[in-house]
């Protein structure tokens, strides 16, 4: 029942998006903002031949970057949250490097790691990891001490503590951090894909723009925002599956 209603809300969002788009297009009435259905028609036409390959590249870079950030960021955050020594040692490093605009590092990354996949994935990784570390760390720190006591007195090992308390307790904040970072990651992905590649939605959109092919450009933008929708949908789904206890 609730699942169904959520689907309806997504449709509702899409409807509003298209209505606003339609209004803007009618108001401006220039080729620079084409009507939504013309774009959709174009999108369907080029979907298999062009979008599929570019979209897959972008999706792979995002997913790889996120997974890498999770593999390194979650354990780091858990350790920093649970062991004050780790926090004291690592927090200054995190605070110093977090505010650096990661996009400014792109040229260095490209010089060091080449123009290929590695530098792009690492860029996304760098954007996401700090938010993951800080969210997980604070999630662990906010667990009341009393939560641990029954487990301590049962003789729980550190493994027990991590598995039974730290990971589930920090999960909601972790998912929120991924949510927050995801939008930035997609924007940065777009930017990195305008350099040194011939695949990816970023390349596709910029290429269409250079060729003054507005229909393809808008198709690309629609696909990029759909990718965002799907990724957010996946995170929301995980939230409902794993963290349903917090909505009780």
């Amino acid at each position, binding site marked *: 029942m609730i699942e169904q209603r959520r689907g309806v809300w997504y449709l509702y969002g899409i409807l509003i998006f298209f209505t606003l788009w339609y209004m803007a297009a009618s108001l401006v009435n220039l080729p620079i903002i084409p009507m939504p259905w013309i774009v959709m028609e174009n999108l369907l036409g080029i979907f298999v031949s062009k979008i599929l390959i570019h979209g897959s590249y972008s999706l792979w870079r995002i997913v790889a970057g996120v997974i890498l950030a999770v593999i390194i960021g979650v354990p780091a955050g858990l350790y920093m949250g649970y062991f004050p020594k780790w926090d004291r040692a690592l927090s200054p490093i995190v605070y110093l490097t977090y505010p650096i605009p990661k996009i400014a590092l792109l040229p260095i990354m490209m010089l060091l790691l080449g123009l290929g996949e590695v530098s792009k994935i690492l860029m996304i990784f760098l954007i996401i990891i700090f938010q993951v570390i800080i969210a997980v760390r604070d999630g662990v720190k906010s667990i*009341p001490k*009393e*939560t641990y*006591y*029954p*487990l*301590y*007195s*049962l*003789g*729980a090992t550190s493994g*027990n503590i991590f598995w*039974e*308390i730290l990971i*589930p*307790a920090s*999960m909601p904040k972790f998912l929120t951090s991924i949510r927050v970072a995801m939008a930035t990651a997609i924007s940065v992905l777009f930017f990195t894909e305008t350099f040194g590649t011939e695949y990816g939605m970023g390349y596709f959109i910029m290429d269409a723009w250079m060729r003054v092919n507005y229909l393809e450009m808008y198709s690309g933008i629609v696909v990029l925002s759909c990718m965002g929708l799907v990724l957010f949908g996946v995170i929301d789904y995980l939230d409902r599956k794993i*963290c349903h*206890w*917090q909505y*009780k």
Partner: protein
Amino acid sequence: MIQIKNLNVTYEAMGEGYAALENINMELGAGETCAIIGPSGCGKSTLLKVLAGIIREYEGIVEINGQPIMPMKQKIGFIPQNYGLLPWKNVYENIRLSAKIKNIKDRDNSKELDFFVQQLGLAGLEGRYPGELSGGQQQRVALARSFLLKPDLLLMDEPFSALDAMTREEIQNVFLDVWRKYSVSTILVTHYVEEALYLGQKIVILSGIPGTISKIIDNPLFGIENIRNHQDFFQLSLALRKMIKEDWLK
């Protein structure tokens, strides 16, 4: 048997050492219950944490059956004030947690688990999360979790203080029922004189800062049916109250 000899606990705050407990001596026979009563800040909870193996830095001897406190080796059940249930586990998983940590396989205790679920009136609630339970129900889950382990020592920190008066009496009776069946050595901290009288075979009065034992009383009224409605109960609780008041004013 629980033995505490010359226990001293100090804690550090702002670089200075403060004594939390001083020269605590007491004994508790196997299967006995003991209520510790004392004013706020007298170190009741500290004493409980030492027994639970949470505070490890102390002077003196604290032993369960002749062995120093070692949570890995002994079975110690600890129920904190907020019941200590994990919000991300449902009732069933929360009860099972103690056995899981002690590496007891499900098939070895599934019958007992069902028994405790029935005994504590939790049937039908197994799939619920702590956030969906009332305080009394959460307390029942915490009791089930601890009793499933058949602990060498059960510790409860103001276990019934957050419950309303009616629920409190009900859960106190539930506790006594299960305790009678399993006679688990139990130490509970309380600030209600009536609760100490109703649940404690021994009543330990703590006082002062740092906490010291000012009296240990063998409770003559423990375990008598419906004792709460008897004249004796009122009189003893009044006497106890007076004793405590004088003691704490010293």
